[in-house]
């Protein structure tokens, strides 16, 4: 064990040496002293574990933030037209600022404080009681503050994902207000129900309808994806869509962003193990294999349909796989992960290329096609492939592991997943519709036609993304 300190080794050697010496002298008189040393040893080992888990979790929190800035900012930014690149990146960046503050004030409490089955309470308002001491309900070996900051990064990226649906036409003020309200009224209830203590759908803390969601398939991807669809339909299509082609201004930026998303996703999924142990490894492996298989799946489908596998298709496939493996990461083995990924690659390709065309909605950056659809598929497949060998989350009264997913012997899990998914869909649709209406009445959602034509970078932010004028010097 690399992380046992020198001090611990010294203690141990000291005890052996001292014990030997004392046995020779006095026998059992120094039992109390030995007990005291053993206690100190226990404490040192616990501290070592805490250090290892905390180090891992802090790194994971940083990785997940990197997924938003600059991962998602680049991925989305490259996909829009040049005149809207900054506005799109600001959609992600603004979330970091806004959601962080809201989280510190009330968001964390609403998600993870004890409350009802549907929403947390205000016990942790202004992060009261959230400090160095662990919260054993969630993670016994890391400070609650670490858990809080890690979860914050999830709360940040979720509304940022929605921006893919309303890119290139939503007012910045409306986006900011909508996202702030959405994180309180849609994200918080969903996060609480699935992950919060007492949550209706919480699989590990005795929820009435246990829904397996390791790292946020329903909480993050289904909610953001479905909300994205609602936004796309409510706001309407971009000017001249679909007649005028609107290809990405820089697939290169999207490529870089996708790479960061893949690497960052290890923090998202493996970090959801909330410790640096074997479950984190399992989730890490499943995440990577899911992404790889999905990239191949999408590329194959595209190759067969168009005759060429595009770079954008390959990275989109990878993201789709990462989305789908998110609820499953800590529940399934490597082979299941490959299967889930491959299916997600095919399914999301189909959603983005056929279904979107068929129904004609302008989900500009395919937030619904990848996150909504991929998350839904992943959540269902989790119910099928989850295995107690990987994660014995259900135990009987004697502590024996019970079947988890369908193939493991628990077919009931699939209906449970469907209930969780359905709740996510309903909460997202209703919540988003109401909030869009409110924000529309308060500030108006869409920019004017002339502003949309000129570009949001100039009209919303007074800036240009690239200053490549001829006569500058």
């Amino acid at each position: 064990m690399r992380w046992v300190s020198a001090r611990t080794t010294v203690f141990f050697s000291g005890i052996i040496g001292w014990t030997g010496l004392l046995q020779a002298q006095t026998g059992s008189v120094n039992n109390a002293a030995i007990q005291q040393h053993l206690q100190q040893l226990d404490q040192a080992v616990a501290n070592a574990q805490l250090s290892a888990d905390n180090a891992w979790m802090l790194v994971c929190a940083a990785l997940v933030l990197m997924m938003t800035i600059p991962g998602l900012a680049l991925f989305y930014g490259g996909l829009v037209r040049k005149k809207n690149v900054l506005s799109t990146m600001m959609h992600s960046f603004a979330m970091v600022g806004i959601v962080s503050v809201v989280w510190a004030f009330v968001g964390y409490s609403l998600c993870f404080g004890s409350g009802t089955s549907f929403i947390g309470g205000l016990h942790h308002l202004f992060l009261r009681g959230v400090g160095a001491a662990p919260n054993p309900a969630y993670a016994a070996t890391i400070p609650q503050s670490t858990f809080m900051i890690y979860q914050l990064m999830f709360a940040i990226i979720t509304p940022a994902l929605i921006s893919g649906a309303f890119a290139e036409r939503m007012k910045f003020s409306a986006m900011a207000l909508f996202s702030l309200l959405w994180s309180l009224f849609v994200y918080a209830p969903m996060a609480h129900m699935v992950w919060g203590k007492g949550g209706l759908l919480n699989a590990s803390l005795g929820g009435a309808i246990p829904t397996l969601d390791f790292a946020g398939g329903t909480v993050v991807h289904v909610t953001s994806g479905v909300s994205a669809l609602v936004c796309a339909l409510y706001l309407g299509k971009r000017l001249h869509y679909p007649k005028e082609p609107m290809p990405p201004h820089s697939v290169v930026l999207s490529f870089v962003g996708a790479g960061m998303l893949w690497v960052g996703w290890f923090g998202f999924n493996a970090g959801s193990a909330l410790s640096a142990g074997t479950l984190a490894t399992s989730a890490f492996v499943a995440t990577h294999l899911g992404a790889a298989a999905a990239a191949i799946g999408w590329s194959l489908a595209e190759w067969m349909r168009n005759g060429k596998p595009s770079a954008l298709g390959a990275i989109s496939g990878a993201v789709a796989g990462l989305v789908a493996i998110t609820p499953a990461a800590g529940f399934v083995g490597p082979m299941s992960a490959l299967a889930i990924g491959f299916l997600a690659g095919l399914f999301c390709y189909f959603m983005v290329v056929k279904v979107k065309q068929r129904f004609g909605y302008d989900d500009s950056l395919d937030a619904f096609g990848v996150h909504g659809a991929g998350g839904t598929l992943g959540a269902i497949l989790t119910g099928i492939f989850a295995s107690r060998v990987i994660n014995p989350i259900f135990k009987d009264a004697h502590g024996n592991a019970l079947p988890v997913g369908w193939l493991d012997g628990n077919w009931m899990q699939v209906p449970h997943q469907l209930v969780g998914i359905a709740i996510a869909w309903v909460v997202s649709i209703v919540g988003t519709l109401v909030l869009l209406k409110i924000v529309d009445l308060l500030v108006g959602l869409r920019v004017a036609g002339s502003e949309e034509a000129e570009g949001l970078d100039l009209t919303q932010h007074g800036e240009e993304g690239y200053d490549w004028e001829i006569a500058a010097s």
Partner: protein
Amino acid sequence: MQKIEAIIQPSKLDAVKEALIEAGVEGMTILEARGHGRQKGHTEFYRGREYSVDVLPKIKLELVIADAMVERAVQAILKTAGTGRIGDGKIFISRIDNAIRIRNDERGEAAL
């Protein structure tokens, strides 16, 4: 004095430039342009939607040269810019009223 405007394929620029310099042309302006004639564009795919790219990258050369040199320059371009396929480009010739060297106010063909 005549102006030659030649729109050629970007990949032919180096060959055409060399040939013109060899032919005795001393100055030219090179612009990046986009356009098409009878050459159709190509199709690209984005998210399953097919769209055609009609506006193709081209290079435009502008030369102002003495009347006596015009045919030599045109021949140089014709020999090096062509591939035999549609999309090779075009040459336009127009008359120039005057040319002036900014450095010393030289005028006429002496300014070329």
